[in-house]
């Protein structure tokens, strides 16, 4: 099994920090005389996160102090982030360019990203899927998909 001690150590530390952050913010929330106040419940969760984060870090230290292990799989992480970036640009540009323009472009880029090098099938799928989805959702389900608008 993949050794994740190093990552677990830092994740635990991050969770611990998140718990502290949530506790501090929740501590400033309104107090109420009866029942639980808006900050009480998040504070309990924050304490739980601190404890669990601490345990995770401690576990990875007790298993032997974490050392940097092997190579970080940068290539696969970069591929994932490339898709995330593509999706983010797709979502943001849909606001202005609309569904019909952005979707075939996104689909073509994503299909290429997933390894399809046949341009004919890429274009056919991206245009075909966009039109089918548009027809089904707009005409049949009456979902108001974003339209081209500069303002």
């Amino acid at each position, binding site marked *: 099994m993949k050794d994740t001690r190093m990552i677990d150590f830092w*994740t635990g530390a991050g969770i611990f920090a998140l718990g502290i952050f949530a506790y501090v*913010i929740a501590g400033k929330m309104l107090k*109420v005389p009866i029942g639980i106040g*808006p900050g009480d419940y998040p504070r309990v969760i924050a304490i739980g*996160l601190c404890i669990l984060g601490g*345990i995770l870090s401690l576990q990875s230290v007790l298993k032997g102090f974490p050392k940097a292990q092997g190579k970080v799989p940068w290539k696969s992480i970069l591929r994932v982030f490339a898709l995330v970036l593509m*999706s983010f640009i797709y979502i943001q540009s849909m606001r202005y360019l609309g569904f019909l323009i952005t979707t075939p472009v996104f689909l073509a880029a994503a299909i290429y*990203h*997933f390894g399809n090098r046949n341009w004919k099938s890429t274009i056919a799928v991206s245009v075909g899927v966009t039109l089918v989805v548009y027809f089904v959702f707009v005409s049949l*389900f009456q979902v108001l998909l974003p339209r081209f608008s500069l303002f």
Partner: protein
Amino acid sequence: MIGNLLQGFVLVFQPLTFGLMVFGVVLGIIIGAIPGLTGSMGIILLLPLVYRLPPDTALVMLCGLFCGAMYGGSISAILLRTPGTPSASATVLDGYPLCQQGKAGKAIGISTVASFIGGMVSSICLILIAPQLAKVALKFQAADYFSLSVFGLTIMASSSGKSLVKGLIAGWFGLLVSTVGIDGIVGVNRFTFGNTYLMGGFALLPVLIGVFAVSEVLSESQEIKKAGQIVVQEIKGIIPTFADMKAITMAVTVGSIIGVFIGIVPGTGGAIACFLAYNVVQRWSKNGDKFGTGMIEGVAAPESANNATTGGALIPMLTLGVPGDVVTSVMLGALILIGVKPGPLLFVEHANVVYAIFSGMLVIQFLMLGFGLLCAKFSPQILRIPNKILMPVIMVLCVIGAYSLGNQLYDVLVALIFGVIGFFMKKYGYPGAPLVLGVILGPMAEDNLNRALLVSRNDWSVLLTRPISASFMVLSVLSIILALRTAHKDSKKAQA
């Protein structure tokens, strides 16, 4: 009850409902068969359609997809040695050896019949148990609901997979996510940082779309994969013989019973049931030593068990509003979205919906059996659908699913953010189910604790003096002890 069931059948056989039910079953089988796609993802892809249908029709379609996907997972487990869904993981053990012996048709036939029997048993249990449990649940007060949600949250521990701590972190993170937004009682902003979008909190469905669908697409994009080796043998001998049926009787019986019980326990699901049933049947079988070499009992036990969890998982969701597994948690989100609040009142306020589900579940099993046996010959074709085309299309459908929730791109961004979180969780061994349980049960726990304390004027003993509440508290403690013991045993095993 019989009258209500008959009314349910009338609804189920209406053309639109029946057509969509068939659509749900067929789509479920296809989705289940394709490795990387799961029942929860299938339901997510159907969400935009769900918004626009009557609740009973929508739910029957989703149930069809749920059962179809549970069965469909076995097809790739048998033909590709890759389970289509986690629930078919144990089917690989004997299904693939059968395929190697040229008996892929027989393995698919046994899997179909076992899934049918498991599904029928669980549907009957659903019809018999759920109304009774709902009657008890009608007596629940705020303190009882709080204790129930605590019990549901302790289940996080048991659904934590390999690492208890990682499962709990995922669950507590889900709880924290559920607190974002305006507090329901005092009206104070919590963790919104002045952002108007965050004031509404994170809607459940974009979170689910992100954690279960977008994360899967991101995972698949890590490397360019070559298509799996698909079996080229002729699929024949699909219908099990009398001797086959006799041989699998014990396996199917045990599998069905285990599946129903596992299904009822919140936070579990088919993946646990299939291995448990496989192990028990292997131990009890005369041919236990031959398991793993292509025994039909080894296919029948996990397949009956995983399909038996479907009806079981619907019991806590419909009666208590606590999801039985990941798929039912997505269904719960869909239900809330279409204005149907699961819980005991569902049986009073929306009896037509409940009985349509009951009748639908029975009909779905026959549809699954029919399509399973008739289409087994074509099953290798399903596996030829290339991921490099499918995944981008799924991403677009996720975007539309999240967008159509409230016609705002903010929900799509939330789905993308939770997709990235889900991807890293999956990569580093953090299960997604506890996160979802936390998001669903967090508000239920907080609201009911607050209500119980307001009514009792800050008397915390109310949680232990009410018998129902006390029972759930005891169950919660037992659940934690059990999870700790299991974790301790696992760590000892790992050290050995």
